[in-house]
């Protein structure tokens, strides 16, 4: 009997053994899938370069890529009102305007796009990567010592840049991480640094970068596009030393002289290395093109500067831009009056920013020391009595050329493909069919296409549309022109940094020189000599507001200029609109009014973003100290 079983039993046992027990450990070992160790990275020339390459990936795109195609700090300042605040009220601006943010629920951690947002996590990740690179680069296997020197310089500079972003948004509850930390380290002894010390650390990193003979001043080949240069180091130093000296951050110290020296040497080094203001019209799209509807070369060059990408060549057309972010800025159809596809207006320039543009004779419109008699609600402008050119009922005549390059206003013209047929209500434009044509941008109350509307996403909230970054050729039926990439560091800013620091430090003539250089390039007259220090500083601040409008400076500037006994009520609470009535005789009556409600984000806690609640709780548990920014 047994015999007849033997064969199948043995067969089955072999089968069982074969598929189950044979080489147990082998079958459970993971097949190679390309994972490597950190040690291996720094033992290979190409992987070392690859590691540095990854350190670059954390640079925020800025521009209009904050979230859902919006301009972030531009919309959070008194420069503009975001139409998404009503249309998509649960995201960034809507949350902020209604004060609907807290340490555990903040748009910055909820909505992130293109590296804009979630800075607390993103920047610390980036900083650690740079520190890891710097800790390993000296011993790493690198074939060319020139590369080693340049790469090391770039890592220092990237770390400086990332720290500067943290400082701008979070103020200074920051530790300095000069060496990479392990996640399992003991953090109980961690100490907060002062703002000044962090800026010194940033400057050290910049100086380390500048000391490398291999780091170039300018990227001269498209292959190396968007890599950091010595110019970036100078730009960061200039900006952050200015911040450190500013009232909010100086902690009673006077660092203006230091800031002045840093910006002075930054400017001279930049000029010596081929950087220069963009000072003439270069492109045929602007030059002699009636369809750009700009009154003079000052306006044209200013508009075209922002609408074109910098070139990476030895002698580029644009010598002003120090750093432009690499991320694309998407199609213009998603923003402003260029929203020919009907998407949204986004940032609508405020009446406040419009009031800042002087008349062509160099006179401010308002008294800069007290621009509004009702300082909070801004409905009663305090006009500059010396200004004779400004007409309240004809307000857009005779203005600074940069006004025309930056803003579409009631009565301005735009030639593009308009996607709608005009109706009888569009008095200025009726009759006209959908198509390529010149249209009067009419923003009076009730204008059906470009008039003000309180909630519609594509309408203007303020009576103005943003123009500064809008290419005149963008109005094709099938949109092909993208926004130029965001210029986040440019020589113009360094001039203004210098002007401010010099004025504050008492180097009056150098302050005049710097600010006048900026004014001359667009054809504005010099500032009058003999201003008092305070007057000069007010004029320089106003110049900064006009020149750097919508470039995400204002939000940070009003904060660093902040005085301890005040809150942000004068600037950030009420934003006004031009409420324009079209009279039967075809004339317009200009009034001012609030855009809608007050913004509930003017208390002092809004000086900084809150640190995400979890991290604050962890740090409290570890160090016994509250690391949260005040008020959150």
């Amino acid at each position, binding site marked *: *009997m047994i015999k007849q*079983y033997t064969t*199948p*039993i043995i067969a*089955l046992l072999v089968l069982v053994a074969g*598929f*189950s027990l044979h080489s*147990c450990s082998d*079958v*459970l*070992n993971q*097949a190679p899938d390309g*994972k*490597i160790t*950190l040690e291996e*990275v720094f033992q290979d020339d*190409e992987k070392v370069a690859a*590691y540095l*390459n*990854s350190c670059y990936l954390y640079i925020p795109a800025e521009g209009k890529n904050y979230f859902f195609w919006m301009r972030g700090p531009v919309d959070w300042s008194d420069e503009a009102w975001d139409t998404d605040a*009503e*249309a998509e*009220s649960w995201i960034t601006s*809507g*949350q902020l305007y209604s*004060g*609907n943010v807290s340490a555990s*629920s903040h748009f910055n951690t909820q909505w992130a796009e293109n590296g804009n947002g979630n800075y*607390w*996590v993103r920047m*610390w990740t980036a*900083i*650690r990567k740079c*520190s890891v690179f710097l800790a390993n680069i000296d011993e790493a296997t690198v074939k060319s010592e020139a590369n080693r020197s340049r790469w090391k310089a770039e890592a220092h500079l990237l770390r400086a840049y990332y720290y500067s972003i943290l400082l701008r948004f979070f103020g200074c509850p920051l530790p300095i*991480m000069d060496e990479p930390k*392990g*996640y399992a*380290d003991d*953090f109980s002894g*961690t100490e907060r640094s002062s703002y000044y010390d962090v800026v010194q650390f940033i400057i050290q990193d910049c100086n380390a970068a500048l000391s490398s003979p291999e780091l170039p001043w300018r990227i001269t080949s498209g*292959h190396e596009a*968007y890599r950091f240069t010595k110019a970036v180091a100078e730009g960061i130093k200039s900006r952050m030393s200015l911040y450190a000296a500013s009232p909010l951050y100086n902690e009673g110290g006077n660092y203006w002289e230091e800031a002045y020296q840093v910006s002075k040497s930054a400017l001279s080094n930049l000029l010596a290395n081929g950087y220069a203001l963009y000072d003439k019209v270069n492109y045929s799209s602007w030059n002699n093109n009636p369809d750009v509807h700009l009154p003079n070369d000052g306006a044209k060059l200013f508009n075209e500067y922002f609408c074109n990408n910098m070139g990476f060549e030895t002698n580029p057309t644009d010598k002003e831009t120090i750093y432009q972010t690499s991320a694309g800025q998407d199609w213009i159809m998603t923003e402003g009056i260029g929203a020919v*596809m009907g*998407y949204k207006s986004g940032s609508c320039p405020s009446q406040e920013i419009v009031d800042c543009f002087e008349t062509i004779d160099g006179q401010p419109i308002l008294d800069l020391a007290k621009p509004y008699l009702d300082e909070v609600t801004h409905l009663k402008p305090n006009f500059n009595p010396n200004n004779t050119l400004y007409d309240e009922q004809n307000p857009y005549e005779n203005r600074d050329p940069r006004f025309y390059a930056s803003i579409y206003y009631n009565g301005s013209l735009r030639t593009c493909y308009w996607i709608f047929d005009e109706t009888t209500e569009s008095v200025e434009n009726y009759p006209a069919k*959908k198509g390529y044509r010149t249209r009067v941008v009419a923003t009076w109350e009730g204008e059906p296409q470009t008039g003000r*509307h*309180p*909630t519609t*996403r*594509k309408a203007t909230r303020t009576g103005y549309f943003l123009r500064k970054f809008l290419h005149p050729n963008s109005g094709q039926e099938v949109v092909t022109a993208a926004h130029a990439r965001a210029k986040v560091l440019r020589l113009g800013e360094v001039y203004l940094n210098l002007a401010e620091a010099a004025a504050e430090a008492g180097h009056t003539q150098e302050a005049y020189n710097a600010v006048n250089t900026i004014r001359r390039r667009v054809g504005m007259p010099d500032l009058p000599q003999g201003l008092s220090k305070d007057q000069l500083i007010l004029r320089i601040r106003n110049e900064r507001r006009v020149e750097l409008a919508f470039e995400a400076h204002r939000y940070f500037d009003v904060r660093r200029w902040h005085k301890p006994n005040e809150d942000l009520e004068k600037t950030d609470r009420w934003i006004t609109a031009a409420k324009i009535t079209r009279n039967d005789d075809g004339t317009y009556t200009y009034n001012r009014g609030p855009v809608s*409600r007050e913004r*509930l984000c003017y208390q002092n806690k809004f000086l900084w973003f809150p640190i995400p609640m*979890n*991290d604050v*709780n*962890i*740090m*409290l*548990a570890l160090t016994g100290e*509250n690391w949260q920014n005040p008020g959150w």
Partner: protein
Amino acid sequence: MKKRFPLHSGKRLMFLILCLYSFGVFAQNVTVRGLVSDTQGEPLIGVTVRIEGTSQGTITGMDGRYVLANTPSDATLLFSYVGTKPQAVKVNGRTTINITLVEDVEMLEDVVVVAYGVQKKVAVTGAISSVSTDELRVSSSASIANALAGRVAGLTSMQRAGGRPGADDATMYLRGAATLNGVTPLILIDGVPRDNIRTIDVNEVESISVLKDASATSVFGVRGANGVLIITTKRGKVGKPELSVNVTQSYSRLTREPDMPGSVEYMHLRNQALVNDGFEPAFTPEVIAKFENPLAGLDPNDPDYEEKAALRKWMYPDNDWYDILIARWSPQTNVNANMSGGTDKITYFLNVGYLHQGGNMKTLSEDILKYDPSFKLDRYTFRSNVDYNVTKWLSAYLNLGTYIEKVNMPNPGVMYGGDRNWLVRDMLYQAQAILPISPGPLTIAGFGVPANKPLDPTYLTSGHYADRSPVMIMNWYGYNLDTRSNLNSSFGLNFKLDAITEGLELRGMISYDARGNSMTRGNMRQTDYQAFVDPETDELTFSVHELHQDNFWMSYGQGSRYNMNLQGQLLYNRAFGKHSVAGMLRAERDYWDSGGAAIPFNVLGMAGRATYDFDSRYFAEVDFGYNGSEQFAPVKRFGFFPSASVGWVISNESFLLDNPLITFLKLRGSYGKVGNDQQGGYRFLYQDDIRVGGGFSGSLAAGKGINEGLLGNKVITWETANKYNVGVDFSIATDITGQVDFFKEHRSDILLQRASIPVWQGTPLNYIPRVNMGEVENRGYEIELGYNKQVTRDLFLQFKGQFSYNRNKRLNVDEVPRDDTYAYKYRGTGYPLGQNWGYVIDWDQDGGYWTEETLADPDRVTYAFGTPIPGDFVYKDLNGDGIVDDKDQAPIGVGHIPRYSFGASFSAHWKGFDAYIFFQGLAKFNSTFAHQGTYETVLRGTYFPYHKQSWTKERWEKGEKITYPALHSQTTVNHRTNSFFVFDRDLVRLKNFEIGYTLPKNSLKVLGVSDMRLFFNGQNVLTWSPKFRPYHLDPENDDSIGYPQTTIFSFGTNIKF
């Protein structure tokens, strides 16, 4: 329990009478007749009568009588029948033998499918429930997993993700949840882990067993901690071929539909919301008047009056877009035929099924579109299970189960990432958000545009918001056809090794599953239009919204995957007098390819079982699983998971043996360890995930970068569940049966992401090594009750009910405590999984709402996140610092996993009629629904019924019922997660009912039909969810704009030949 009146006589055994020809073997052969009845004198149908020592026999007929020819006069007849004690009767020359069979309580439920085998019910010491497929067949669900809802104690099956055809997967919790990671039970189909429970045809299934405690599941080792579902398919039985045909036609609609406001009501609500926010009203009285009376100003005597009136009504409509977009009754067809039978050598079960399921979206006809974008599913299932007895000691079997499924829907290519669910969500969302004042959905003639072209009604919805129109999404972008095919195959050999030692058996099986899927997509881009109505001039203008060339192109995609399973098993089963022992030892290897771009998975394991039974009174069982998973580092690769259990059948003790009241009583207890290797989709967590990837600049490392991902934990291991279970099985008299189980589980070593490390150290928290730190405790109980009563000869009543409770608590989640200024120091530790946190509304202060008076109080609390207006929620300042902020958040509700799950069915048979009704419920679970589907602020306002009684000053002063805070046009303080929006989802459904009629047998004999039954049934007929505030939503669906559940009515027939 169809022992007396087998309505579905699928289990009836029919032995072929092979020996009718054996004349002359015995000299004295007689024909024996008789009646077999039960103790109450009722005739028993289908009793097997066999001559001992031969295969000769018969069964009793409809009247309980049998005839057995050629019976040796000295033979012994064996009478056997399910649920009774077998009897042996000597013929002794008699020609009439009437006998009474006595019920055998032990045999009531014959056998139970357990892990890798079957056990007699009486011997089971673990916690196991099973469900018969007859019950599931009443369900119209396309997936068995959904049909299981409420039918098994301890198993919660929910359609959290909704019911889109082809994507109606159930979320299953067995005894709730006890881990932060995957909670899905292991599902075995014919002994192999398989994931096609959604598609298996209920007609193929013999039984479903649910294994709950450690004793039942420890043999599964690292895969068993979440419990196990074992699906066993049908096999053929010796007997003449039986053909069964089932045809069902059904109609389905969504269980809940929002009652959207009409045009005039909408405009008033919207105005109110805008005014509350400080805006001008959007609709002037003149515009509202246009919609109230669109025909105003028309002259009835005008010869063109009719035409003009129609146009006005089109321009100032009162559209119910839900009605325009959602189909009310869509058809579903289910056809199935199966055949089974066999001889001593070969038995077979063959099944073929076809299911057609229509969708509930109204797409345009193929005549207009030239293609069909409708939602529909067609599924063809085939199965062939064949057993072959090669010799007396060797048998072989081959199981082949396949399906082909075609799921058609509109083209999702226009959605972000081509997401199919997004498409459905977008459609439902838009169906709610398009305004009733928007004309559409097609253009009309006479205004310079072609007629019946797509019109974008979102134009008015969102102003100039160029989003996708649902009419476009549903119809005009093309279609998508997903085809999936699947083969489950297993080949096995069973050797009976009685020759070595009696009761020894060796089994081997190899399984191969293959799956393929392909996508055929017709892409279309079509111009659509917008309408602009000017209420001042009554002018209508059209313009192009999106201009496209009407081109059509195809795209394709495909993928495949496989699963191999190999297993060998040695079994021993033998009785020695009063001692019975059984043992099992097995080895298994699994490897599969997940279909994604991933390395194949590998699992290796052994398992064993030993049981001992003394005199059917004392039972003991020891089980173990020993598995290795490649997920873990070599040092931590293999785990050993033992369990032990005991049982005592008290009713077999002499003092209870003949007790008429307590007819059966058993106590059970078990303890053991089981593992869970589900790690949230991560693999190889013991290794650092550092790879070469993409970088920033092409000038560095040729564009390469180094991606630093999740860091490895060298000692990563599986979760361990320590499970305790005690249970009682009982029968009272002859009618009532029951089972009660209590369980407790301590899950430790749960893999989690650290939460006590600061972000600024620089390694992103989600890349910090996962650690085995988590601990969760889970406890609960289950009760099953049954009642069966043959009231009269014609009337049979049955009740089945189950009630389950589970409650989990997180003991450690690596949480850092908050400081003392917080109302609650922890938000995870000590709370159940999925606990919601939010602001607590003070319902005692003016009903929960601010008024002008209370807002004017200078000492009132302020909100850190905005300023309330009258009618906004009053939140409690729990820490008493005068400011409502994060620190005042409190636990709300009990988490999203239902604590209670219950079901109860009643059935009755009377003569040819039968009726069945089944209620199912879930209780104690909460979820937040935010924004779309619940808020009033969406786009230009969506107003569901509970918004219509929002807080207004007038309503408040009059003391009217208020169901919602003041309306807003934007998200405000009200829309923070709070005790209003954390909804209580308790629900009870009339899940199924069925009325059937079985035709008298004689009436159909001429057609060759042995059995024919007609039925009418319903599914999800009624749903009660009294505490669920957004009553327009189905409380079972997690997604407020997901594809909802459906109510289905069906009629059909089962025919047996």
